[in-house]
């Protein structure tokens, strides 16, 4: 058995996408842990925005499940409403935002609304702030489990727009910035080249064939596919401090 879970290497890979002093629109689950990890390691001056209306530059005071939990509001820099945090996003003050979803396609469009299955349409919870982050953040990071049913050629429904149908699409829709920068999965990391997901690294022990078999579109790879660095002992210690029961990373 591996010394870390797929969830933990996803968190560690996601944390590396956060640069020091960046303003990050933090989601929940793995992205939240990635923000906590970045804060405790290489990005101590990053500031996190939570869409319920929390702005904080320190990790939560204790383990949390939702952004509204009391340890996430205690010792915040500011608490406010959705209108204020979303205005910061809309005004171009947010460098980076995280989202996850049920489906992603090769253009980084994300679906959290409905999935077509042989048994009929399955209704999912919806956008939350996901579409706002995808439309308005400086760059978008998508994080999700790598499964054939999730990495599809074309999402059944665009909840959160990525690069749409390719270069020029966002502008044609009235979106004046942003777009997906990376897709972090349980098997590897993709970056987006000309709007198309391009495999940049494989997690240790993962083969190209395995990724190809679990990816619904024809795989495009970087000239040199790297190996994703393993999470260090210190990183694992930090992740487990914030997710002590492996509620999110199991």
């Amino acid at each position, binding site marked *: 058995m591996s010394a870390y879970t797929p969830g933990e290497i996803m968190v560690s890979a996601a944390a590396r996408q956060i640069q020091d002093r960046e303003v990050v629109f933090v989601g929940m689950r793995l992205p939240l842990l990635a923000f906590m990890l970045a804060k405790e390691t290489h990005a101590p001056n990053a500031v996190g925005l939570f869409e319920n209306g929390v702005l904080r530059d320190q990790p939560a005071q204790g383990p949390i499940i939702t952004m509204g939990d009391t340890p996430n509001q205690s010792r915040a820099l500011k608490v406010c*409403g959705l209108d204020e945090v979303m205005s910061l996003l809309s005004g171009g003050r947010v460098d980076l935002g995280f989202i996850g979803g049920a489906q992603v396609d090769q253009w980084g469009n994300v679906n959290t609304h409905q999935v077509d299955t042989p048994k009929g349409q399955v209704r999912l919870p*919806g956008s939350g*702030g996901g579409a706002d982050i995808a439309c308005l953040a400086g760059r978008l990071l998508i994080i999700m489990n790598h499964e054939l049913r999730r990495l599809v050629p074309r999402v059944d429904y665009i909840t959160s727009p990525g690069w749409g149908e390719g270069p020029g699409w966002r502008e044609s829709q009235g979106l004046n910035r942003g777009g997906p920068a990376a897709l972090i999965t349980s098997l590897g990391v993709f970056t987006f080249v000309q709007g198309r997901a391009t495999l940049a690294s494989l997690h240790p022990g993962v083969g190209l064939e395995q990724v190809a078999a679990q990816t619904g579109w024809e795989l495009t790879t970087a000239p040199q596919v790297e190996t994703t660095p393993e999470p260090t002992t210190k990183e694992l210690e930090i992740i487990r401090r914030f997710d002590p029961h492996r509620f999110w990373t199991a």
Partner: protein
Amino acid sequence: MAKPSDKVCDLPDAVARLVRPGDAVALSCGLEGMIPYAAAHELIRQKIGPLTLIAPISNISFDQIIAAGLAQRVVAAWVGNVSTGIGYNFRRAVEQSRPRPLEVIDHSNFSITLALEAGARGLPMAVGRSPLGSDMVRDNPHFKKITCPHSGQELLAIKALNPEVALIHVQRADAQGNGQGWGATGFTRQAAMASKRVLLTCEELVDSEVIRRDPDRTLVPGILVDAVCEVPWGAHPAPVQGYYDLDNQFYLDYAAATRDEGSAQQWLAEWITGPGGRADYLAKLGSDRLCGLATQHSLPTAPVEYGW
């Protein structure tokens, strides 16, 4: 709007007086925190419906009202269980029209906030950029594309929302309904101003002097409020800053219990319609469980000078 002396009342009376069949009701305006579960459960006990439900992220409050067959429409950015994902009653209603058909008007968190802000300002629409490019914009009567007459940019005209009633939970309020809330507020402020009536529940009813000593913290002014009810633990299992934290186990148990329709109805009977009111619900939870959720790390704010 009620006279100040009429505002303090029991929750069942307030719900019976202020929430009517056919109403659009804004609730759970603070996203995961400060959810007015006590008020939501009371309208389920009184079987008031059909309702249009308005929220950003309602957590399981919508899922419960939907299970009770009292929702005909939701206007929301997200409906589910924040701890586990899927809201099974919401899914059954959308996919199988059980227990009744449910119309869904999809929004993003930002667009629904702007819709209420426009309603609060007495305007017919708000202007936004997000969620342009999303399929939510297609065939959605609340979004129309417009061209800015100043800049020529393509933008969204977002239809204003003016709910009949808002159900809001805060930490403390006085008898005139001046409600003070702290912590993240989601779109509570906009919902209170946009709604025709406001039902306020609070952890503690306090003397008006407490409010006057700290007017910055007044989230909902009494001029907007029709009824105020003291309901300790009124947001359980949601967190309330300074009082109690999230009861995550409750959300996990709810998810497990509501996977199929029969057990979901049993859950409603056990936790909502069975107990006669909030006191019975709290007794069922038990004092040990509540003590474990109560705020344990005190951190009072630094006082500010508010003299003259």
